[in-house]
């Protein structure tokens, strides 16, 4: 921390480097100083925290995806991180870097949003815990103020809850930068007839990864059936998503895909 203060504006933090080195090479970023944070000891661990998890920001995403603890407690997160990038990228790219880089298409974000994760930010003035939903402030922008993202906290989730992650990309391969991604975590009531807790998160369809609050609200307390699924998917596409057109897809295509993927995810979670 004191090092960051001393170096002030000219310092950039290097973790896995999979985004940073590309940005340096194409001249988008010019650094006077890089500080490698990978080896700060407490940034490198995955540990259980009550029934939840604490992920060190510098743990690489493939290690998290393959962790037995993560697979057992949060298969949704493991599923999303398994397709974050190629094996080579996953072996370097860190979970903290994927979030702090704040791409609207960051593959770790929808799953962590659906799991209501928080991030711990440490700065010269102390530390604070920020819900991930409030962490992103725009494309490539976060609320970080000369702070270091040190940990990701994933709270315990209801046992009956299940999650699904879909990533739509041109190749259908982990290397894709997604056109649309959708993570849904849903908890039915004991009779499995009513949606009691549904969290829908969308990637690459707004300036930041977002929760689809309108769609979620429409499901709460409603019957688990085709009609409610359809209504929610439509709201997610029309009210929650605010996509732009870019080289990966047009805004209207993105909306159409949000509708289909949210419906598909909810249908899958409706089974049994």
């Amino acid at each position: 921390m004191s090092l960051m203060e001393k170096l002030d504006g000219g310092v950039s933090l290097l973790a896995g480097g999979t985004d940073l080195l590309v940005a340096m090479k194409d001249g988008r970023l010019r650094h006077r100083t890089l500080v490698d944070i990978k080896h700060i000891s407490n940034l490198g661990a995955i540990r259980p925290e009550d029934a939840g998890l604490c992920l060190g920001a510098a743990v690489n995403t493939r290690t998290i995806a393959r962790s037995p603890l993560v697979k057992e407690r949060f298969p949704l997160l493991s599923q999303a991180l398994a397709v974050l990038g190629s094996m080579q990228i996953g072996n370097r790219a860190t979970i903290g870097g994927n979030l702090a880089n704040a791409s609207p298409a960051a593959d770790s974000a929808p799953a962590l949003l659906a799991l209501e994760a928080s991030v711990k930010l440490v700065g010269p003035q102390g530390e604070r815990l920020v819900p991930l939903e409030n962490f992103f402030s725009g494309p490539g922008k976060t609320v970080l103020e000369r702070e270091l993202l040190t940990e990701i906290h994933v709270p315990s989730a209801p046992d009956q809850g299940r999650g699904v992650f879909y990533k739509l990309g041109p190749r259908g391969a982990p290397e894709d930068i997604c056109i649309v991604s959708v993570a849904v975590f849903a908890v039915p009531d004991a009779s499995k007839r009513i949606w009691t807790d549904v969290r829908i998160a969308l990637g690459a369809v707004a300036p930041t990864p977002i929760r689809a609050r309108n769609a979620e609200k429409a499901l709460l307390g409603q019957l688990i059936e085709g009609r409610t699924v359809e209504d929610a998917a439509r709201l997610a596409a029309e009210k929650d998503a605010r996509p732009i057109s870019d080289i990966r897809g047009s805004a209207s295509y993105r909306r159409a895909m949000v509708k289909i993927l949210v419906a598909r995810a909810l249908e899958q979670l409706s089974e049994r």
Partner: protein
Amino acid sequence: MNITHNIRVIINGQTREISVAPNETLQDLLRYRLGLVGTKSGCETGDCGACTVIVDGKAVNSCLVLAVESNGSSVTTIEGISSNGELHPLQQAFIDHGAVQCGFCTPGMILAAKSLLDEDPNANEKDIRLALAGNLCRCTGYVSILKAVAAAGKTLRGGK
């Protein structure tokens, strides 16, 4: 600025002490300073996998690793996987299955496959496909490559 860093790194089993520039990538160190040109330079952005090397047991894109970051690590390149003049089973399988066309992707393919098989000797076809998704072959000879890796896996498991 002419800052340099002295690093100690094990390359293909041999400990080297090298002075590197802060912005020098591992790929450039291997190719241009150490002459290990089996590590190919392709996209330079981590998309094509041609520059794949194994660092501490894990396949990485050497174009996205700074040389200084490899201080204290063990690096394996394509030049380091044969032993006593014997080809590695993956190298032999690539020859046997016609999995080499122009050859540019081959070192990266073999090292990605090696790290997978070292990690999981029982890797199935799905695992192999996923592990090689980050290695592009512009000759598009993927089917032979998949067959070669599966065959090498079998050899390494002692199945022949």
